[in-house]
């Protein structure tokens, strides 16, 4: 029978086709290209499911797949560059998520864009399709160069979509910012990629020939030839050099996943259409960074320093973003900062060795964040594109579907049992804790993450209460525009998922009851071949984590259960506390702004800790003036010299011709003098006298 794996490329190619179709024929198509996208992503979803089943081992025997499909650039006497497909549990899971969310976003867009009869829809759907294409191709990339390429394309699509309403001033500038900031991160990423190729001669993620495996050998076993060659060239130890490479790649991750300090582009990115925000934050662009770290986890595990840094960045970002989320006025702004914060959790998990936890949170977050954004989208439709929460209120009755689904999403985000967020976030914190007990750095990261739980609960429900509860605070809120099925359907699906998706990995229950219900964990442990041949299974990672990264689990009072319950109770309690505070402050008929109580802190938070300010200053206060100086220097000095030479020679020419006075006697005189000079000079030289 045919294997699903042969069709994996199609997962990405279908959206690509729909991109071309929408771009060229979109104008004349019934839904302006939406249908093309829907069909394409639906197809991708089906193939993804098929692939997932195959990976799970239900169909056929092989459960992972690697194939080089296109030689990109042939090298003679050096390595080739190629594009290839690599399917393993991680990538197949990601494929599933991405294609699902894309499909739903396409459907939702029918309501959000078409029904609002926006212009330029073909462009919109084309970009959307390109976005899905890039992301899917990125997911099944088999080497880091290919990953980078589609990583960049994702950036392009974000540029196109954020700047979709190019006729206004704000969106294009936001788009520019998004691309520039992520580009800055990608600059380091690219150095990392180039470095990896230069060091290992390959960019493969998996198999013995892959660079993580070679790196592992270099550190644990005997040094592979090319690697030692290069290391001696740069004159560094393996550990040291790999750390540098890892950090360089991490630059790209920080940029795309909007981690501190390169998070500034994400809130601005809200200028784009809301479905786009859903896509960007839930499943694609921002997820890409975290996914990349998971993808090359085998490499990061080798360098404890990098791991620690990842954890710290994650923990800090989680807290940092959450604090800013507390004071935002606009619905989508709150969600934006929550996104940053949630991805912080994933980084925290990865950094502290919680591979499963990270992937778990990535999954659940994809669902509930998509849900929240689409819900917000539906609210925004209802509010005629007014996003200020202080103009809303009392929408609960007006739009029940939106309300209940949004609520489910919010509970998930806040991490209230038994919604998805609880399970994943709890596991993240648990992993951080147990590994942190033996490792102060991780413990600090854990503490920050824990603190963020409270804030998350607070700002989430502040948002919910302000939007849906109390009395309507504006005329539009009085009678909001109603939304159609194409909005409600995706909300419904996601709402259910948000409530239930957490059950795929209920570790605490397992630990307590001993039921083998940690499906995701099993899934990521992967098959025999995966660990033996492709080396991307959990069983391959765990020993490295222990031996090389030196991150070991230790438990409070030596009891795993105690620790487990403690951590769960702690996070749940904090979350509930946050919700409760929000309830006391905002779940009243006439809520008022309490931010003044924060005093000086408020302005700081309102200005997002002046992050934008200093980055803008770096760009326009430092770089531009520098460029101008360079320009003046160029025009003045360098070009001045060139022009100077010419004018000097012309001037001297003008002097020289004055010798020709026109008086023949002078000529005779000069002639005589000239001859005399020659005679004297050569007389002296020749010694005639």
């Amino acid at each position: 029978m045919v294997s699903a794996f042969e069709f994996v490329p199609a997962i990405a190619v279908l959206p690509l086709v729909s991109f071309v179709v929408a771009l060229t024929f979109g104008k004349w198509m019934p839904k302006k290209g939406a249908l093309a996208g829907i069909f394409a992503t639906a197809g991708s979803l089906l193939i993804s499911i098929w692939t997932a089943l195959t990976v799970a081992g239900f169909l056929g025997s092989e459960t992972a797949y690697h194939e080089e499909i296109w030689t990109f650039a042939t090298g003679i006497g050096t390595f080739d560059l190629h594009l290839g497909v690599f399917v393993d549990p991680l990538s197949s899971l990601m494929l599933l998520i991405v294609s699902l969310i894309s499909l739903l976003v396409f459907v939702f867009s029918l309501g959000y864009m078409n029904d609002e009869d926006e212009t330029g829809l073909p462009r919109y759907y084309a970009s959307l399709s390109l976005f899905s294409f890039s992301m899917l191709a990125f997911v099944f990339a088999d080497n880091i160069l290919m990953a980078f390429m589609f990583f960049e394309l994702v950036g392009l699509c974000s540029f196109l979509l954020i700047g979709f309403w190019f006729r206004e001033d704000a969106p294009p500038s936001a788009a520019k910012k998004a691309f520039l900031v992520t580009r800055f991160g990608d600059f380091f990423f690219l150095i990392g990629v180039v470095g990896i190729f230069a060091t290992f001669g390959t960019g493969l993620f998996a198999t013995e020939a892959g660079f993580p495996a070679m790196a592992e050998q270099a550190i644990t076993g005997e040094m592979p030839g090319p690697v030692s060659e290069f290391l001696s060239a740069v004159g560094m130890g393996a550990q040291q050099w790999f750390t540098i490479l890892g950090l360089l790649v991490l630059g790209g991750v920080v940029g795309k996943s909007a981690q501190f300090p390169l998070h500034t582009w994400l809130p601005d990115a809200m200028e784009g259409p809301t479905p786009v925000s859903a896509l960007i934050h839930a499943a694609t662009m921002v997820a890409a960074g975290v996914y990349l770290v998971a993808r090359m986890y085998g490499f990061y595990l080798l360098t404890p320093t990098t791991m620690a840094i990842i954890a710290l960045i994650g923990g800090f970002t989680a807290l940092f973003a959450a604090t800013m989320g507390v004071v935002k006025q606009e619905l989508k702004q709150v969600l934006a900062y929550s996104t940053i914060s949630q991805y912080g959790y994933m980084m925290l998990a990865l950094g502290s060795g919680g591979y499963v936890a990270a992937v778990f949170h990535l999954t659940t977050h994809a669902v509930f964040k998509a849900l929240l954004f689409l819900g917000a989208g539906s609210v925004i439709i209802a509010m005629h594109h007014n996003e200020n929460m202080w103009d809303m209120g009392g929408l609960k009755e007006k739009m029940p579907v939106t309300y209940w689904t949004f609520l489910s999403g919010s509970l998930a985000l806040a991490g209230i049992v038994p919604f998805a967020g609880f399970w994943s976030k709890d596991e993240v914190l648990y992993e951080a804790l147990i590994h942190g007990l033996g490792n102060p750095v991780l413990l600090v990261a854990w503490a920050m993450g824990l603190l963020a739980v409270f804030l998350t609960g607070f700002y989430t429900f502040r948002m919910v209460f302000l939007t849906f509860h109390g009395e309507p605070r504006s005329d539009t809120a009085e009678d909001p525009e109603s939304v159609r099925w194409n909005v409600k359907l995706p909300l419904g699906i996601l709402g259910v998922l948000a409530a239930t998706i957490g059950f795929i990995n209920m570790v605490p229950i397992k630990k307590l009851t001993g039921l083998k219900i940690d499906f995701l964990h099993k899934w990521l442990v992967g098959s025999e071949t995966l660990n033996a041949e492709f080396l991307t299974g959990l069983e391959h990672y765990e020993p490295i984590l222990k031996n090389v990264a030196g991150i070991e689990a230790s438990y409070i009072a030596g009891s795993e259960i105690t620790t487990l319950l403690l951590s769960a109770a702690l996070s749940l309690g904090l979350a509930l506390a946050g919700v409760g505070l929000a309830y006391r402050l905002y779940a009243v008929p006439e809520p008022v702004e309490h931010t003044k109580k924060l005093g000086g802190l408020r302005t700081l938070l309102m200005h997002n800790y002046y992050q934008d300010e200093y980055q803008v200053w770096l760009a326009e206060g430092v770089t531009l003036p520098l460029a101008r100086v360079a320009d003046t220097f160029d025009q003045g000095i360098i070009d001045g010299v060139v022009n100077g030479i010419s004018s000097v020679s012309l001037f001297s020419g003008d002097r020289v011709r004055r010798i020709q006075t026109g008086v023949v006697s002078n000529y005779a005189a000069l002639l005589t003098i000239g001859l005399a000079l020659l005679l004297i000079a050569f007389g002296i030289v020749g010694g005639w006298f």
Partner: protein
Amino acid sequence: MLVELLIVFALMAAGLVFLVPDEYAGQFAAVLSLVPVGVSLWMYSIFDGTGNALLEGGQPAFETVANWITLGPYAISWHVGLDGVSMPLVVLTTLLTTLAIVSAWTPIDERESQFYGLVLFMQAALIGVFAALDFLLWFVFWEAVLVPMYFLIGVWGGPRRKYAAIKFFVYTNVASLVMFAGFFTLVFGLGDSISTLGLPAIAQALEAGQLGSVGGFGPGTVKLAAFAALFFGFAVKVPVVPFHTWLPDAHVEAPTPVSVLLAGVLLKMGTYALLRFNFTMLADVARANAALIAIFAVVSVIYGALLALAQQDLKRIVAYSSISSMGYVILGLIAFTPHGVGGATFQMVSHGLISGLMFMAVGVIYNETHTRMIGDMSGMADRMPVTAGVFVAAAFGYMGLPLMSGFAAEVLVFMGAFRSTTIPMAPLFTGIAMFGIVIVAGYLLRAMQKTLFGPFRLETDYEIGRAPLQDVAPLFVLLALVIALGVAPDLFYRMIQDAVFEVTALGLGGGA
């Protein structure tokens, strides 16, 4: 004989176009110029050259040798041939010429027949430059390129065209003569070991360490002096900072189609010559001074990008960014690794296409608005969506967007440079140079945001219509090529690799 066919046909076409009346000249020239395109593509398809034309074991395709003149002790011959380096450049030349001619239909509205005649004449010379394998022959073509360019800028250019034309003319001519003198020092240094000025003969004699002392100077000095002279001569053409100041003026004043050829092909003459002479014949000197040259390269990249950042004139921006992009070529060449030199060569082609695309896009906007100043317009995407779309695509191509040729070229150069053994602290140098990709994004995004996006506004009082097909069509052709080469660099990269591999081995031991 196919190379001869190309050159002779281009010359005859030029002659014919001079004679036809102005109103038909454009179309006529375009049709004629399709023949070289076809021929060159056919040559590409049957290309059978192996190795590097200058080195032992190299067997250029379409090679012909015929005795031309005797210059003192040296037999000068008509010696042409194409190897993996020159073949792509010839294809690039023919393609860009045709596209430039078509894109000239709109902007060029006086003395057309002379314009197109000169363009075709220049095409002949350019093909000659890339195909010639005898020094004097090569130099004839090299210098012959100047003449049409002088007129093309001087007659059909902008307000300061005369200044720009003469500046370009004199500056590059001085450079060529210095380079000529330097090269002949080398030739006489080789003494009786060569009897022709064939580049392969000279290169191989140098490899064999035949260089003797000239006048009072020993071989080492001679080599170094010659290298310096040659490097200066070509650096002006490339241009490498600080010999670049003729370029912005020339670009800004030249009409768009001419800018296309100037950036697309003429700059490549410099890098091509650098590869042939400095980095193949005098590889050992190049290696010895790798650090210095790498610094030249990096400075060109960063400084050029910074200058572009400071500009308001769209054309000036592209002009300066060409300087920046050419810096990558130098970096790749000096790396002396297969991907380094190969990537550099690929970058020559790729940048030829992309910069051509960029200039054409600017040109189309200019045709409609009659301004190129960023401040004068905004929201053009509202009125010229298609053009704007291509402009965006071109800009991202310039930023090295994956699946477009620029990315392939740059990443290859970086990979080559990163693991280079010639450049000291290669990773550091490469890393610094790579910061160019951030700055380029900076100024191009800024330019796009200011001109294409935002609410529509235009200072000049012109009625904006959609650009005519003849203006936009070339853009799409180029875009298609850029993407094709971006998805499948091997179309050219394979033969390039084959031709440059030998080069990377040079200069390690040999040479006196």
